[in-house]
């Protein structure tokens, strides 16, 4: 046994590095790896077929070799889907649906996030009487399927005089998402240190000032989460857009469905696939753009760190 001398501060002395053995891959991680590979293939194979089909001329598709790469690559189906695809009698492509969806998306986001964040803030940080009861009711509402209240909602929205406009769709999205979003915001704000809010209450005491100046600037991360959630929900929604939108405010999904699901005429597979991809792409772009903001500390520095 060699004697171990105690380390003292010594300038110019080289550090002794004792190498450690690297960890081996364990059996359980192999199992997880295989499972995850199978799950991703389950999604990836159909997606591959959709993508390659959208780049094939129609003649190649009729050969039935769905897994083959295109012999002759073409972007013609994508152009057609965007500009000339027919919905009923109109053949303006899917682009009108895209613009309608954007027009629906923004008011829906603003309305739903504004209502839910303020409600969550009030429930989490202020002494609201019957706050727990209110939360419970919200929680129950989160379990009510939209289809059950669809017809009453149509009557309510019609009586407001906005039926068939983007505002009707935005309002319904805000109402339907309120239970979940309020719970998300409330739970997030509940974790803001009590002393921080007490300090703000002693400094200012104003409900709105504290929300705007203290709480909202701390909400960056949860806003990203909620944004991704809501953009996906609103963009992929079919039923609300179909029932509350008018002829001119049909979202992309409705137009896609009307075009692709036809019982007459030939199925133009390559154009249909391109249209489906065009509809699916925007939420993906949002994922990749915002994903990196997903996990970041927010209160660092407020409390001893």
């Amino acid at each position, binding site marked *: 046994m060699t004697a171990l001398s105690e380390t003292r501060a010594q300038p110019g002395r080289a550090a002794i590095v004792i190498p450690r053995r690297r960890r081996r891959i364990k059996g359980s991680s192999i199992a997880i790896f295989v499972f995850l590979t199978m799950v991703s293939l389950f999604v990836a194979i159909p997606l591959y077929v959709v993508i390659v089909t959208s780049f094939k001329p129609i003649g190649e598709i009729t050969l039935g070799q769905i897994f083959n790469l295109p012999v002759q690559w073409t972007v013609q189906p994508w152009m057609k889907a965007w500009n000339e695809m027919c919905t009923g009698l109109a053949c303006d492509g899917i682009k009108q649906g895209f613009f309608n969806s954007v027009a629906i998306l923004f008011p829906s986001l603003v309305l739903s996030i504004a209502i839910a964040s303020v409600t969550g803030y009030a429930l989490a940080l202020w002494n609201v009487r019957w706050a727990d009861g209110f939360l419970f009711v919200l929680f129950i509402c989160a379990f009510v399927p939209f289809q059950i209240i669809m017809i009453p909602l149509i009557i309510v929205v019609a009586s407001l005089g906005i039926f068939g406009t983007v505002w009707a769709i935005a309002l319904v999205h805000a109402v339907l998402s309120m239970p979940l979003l309020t719970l998300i915001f409330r739970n997030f704000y509940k974790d803001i240190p009590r*002393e921080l809010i*007490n300090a703000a*209450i*002693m400094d*200012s*005491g104003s409900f709105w000032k504290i929300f705007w100046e203290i709480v909202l600037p701390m909400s960056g991360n949860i806003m990203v989460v909620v944004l991704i959630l809501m953009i996906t929900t609103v963009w992929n929604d079919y039923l609300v857009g179909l029932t509350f939108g008018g002829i001119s405010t049909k979202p992309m999904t409705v137009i896609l469905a009307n075009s692709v699901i036809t019982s007459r005429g030939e199925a133009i597979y390559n154009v249909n696939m391109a249209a489906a991809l065009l509809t699916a792409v925007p939420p993906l772009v949002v994922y990749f753009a915002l994903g990196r903001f997903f996990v970041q500390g927010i*209160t660092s520095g*407020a409390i*001893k760190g």
Partner: protein
Amino acid sequence: MPEVRFEHIVKRFGSFNVLEDLSLRVEDGEFLVLLGPSGCGKTTLLNLLAGLLDVTGGRITIGERDVTDLDPSQRGLAMVFQSYALYPTKTVEGNLRFGLSALKLDKAEIERRVAWAAQLLQIDKMMSRKPSQLSGGQRQRVAIGRALVKHAGVLLFDEPLSNLDAKLRTEMRMEIKKLHASLHQTIVYVTHDQIEAMTMATRIAVMDQGVIQQIGTPDEIYEKPANLFVARFIGAPPINTFDATLETSGGRLVARHAPTAIEIDLSRHEFRSAPQAGAPVVVGLRPEHFDVNDASRDDGAIRLSLPVRYSERTGSDATAFLEAGEQLLAVRIEPSLMSRLRIGDTMAASFPMDKLAVFDARSGLRM
């Protein structure tokens, strides 16, 4: 600067009584420390004053104003929190400014006050930094600055130093004391640290189980504890206590500790009420009042020769622990003496009569 009054305060959480009929007056310009163990109700009392909790019963006044039902921001108070509670998304300057947001001041006055506080606390070089870019001591200064800019008559501190390391804590203690000396604000300061209380307070209120056990200057609290709880809570190392019985021996009143047969001479102790022979008492002996150099002094209430069990050195001080029957007796000694001390050595010590503390064993009150 206003005085603060608590009148017959009752606070309940559900069926749990935290405070029951508590009255307290904090005088104008006073530095009052609320001292007590965890859960004694001191922070609750502070939060009631701040308005962060509502009283169940009673009245709180600041100066001539009844603030019992006012909102926290309307009470004319400023508070420094244990965790500093700085706004993480605001800069240091933003933090100071937000402290003024309820006061509706004009721009020039806001600028003047922020600059004043920054200068005073030496944070003017870091005004554009975020709290996460500051060290613990700097955060503490910003938190104090945010309270000072309000020019509130009453400043509240809720264990503000407990997150700092020992060296910084000593520094900040001095600074807070200096601030009080120059600004003369009324300060209510909550802590469980007796050193903080002893060094900073003009008066200390010792609390236990929701009741103020004693209120007085640090000297009074230390030298003349009103009861056993206060005597045992204050002092490090803690006071030595002997459970004894009053007896007359050779015409003198003594307290006799049965297990060791130690007799403590009480003949010159000034009793508050006439003592009765046979009454159980607790005698308190502060470790630093022992005299080990001259154990033959004739005013000694006790003279002891006991074996040393172990000793501790805390920098400028040293304590020897002597074996007295089942219990250990802490005696403060000169550090130079300690190096010569061996475990098992017999040490002679005497205790001066005028430093004795005698408590009624049944009520715990000072006799």
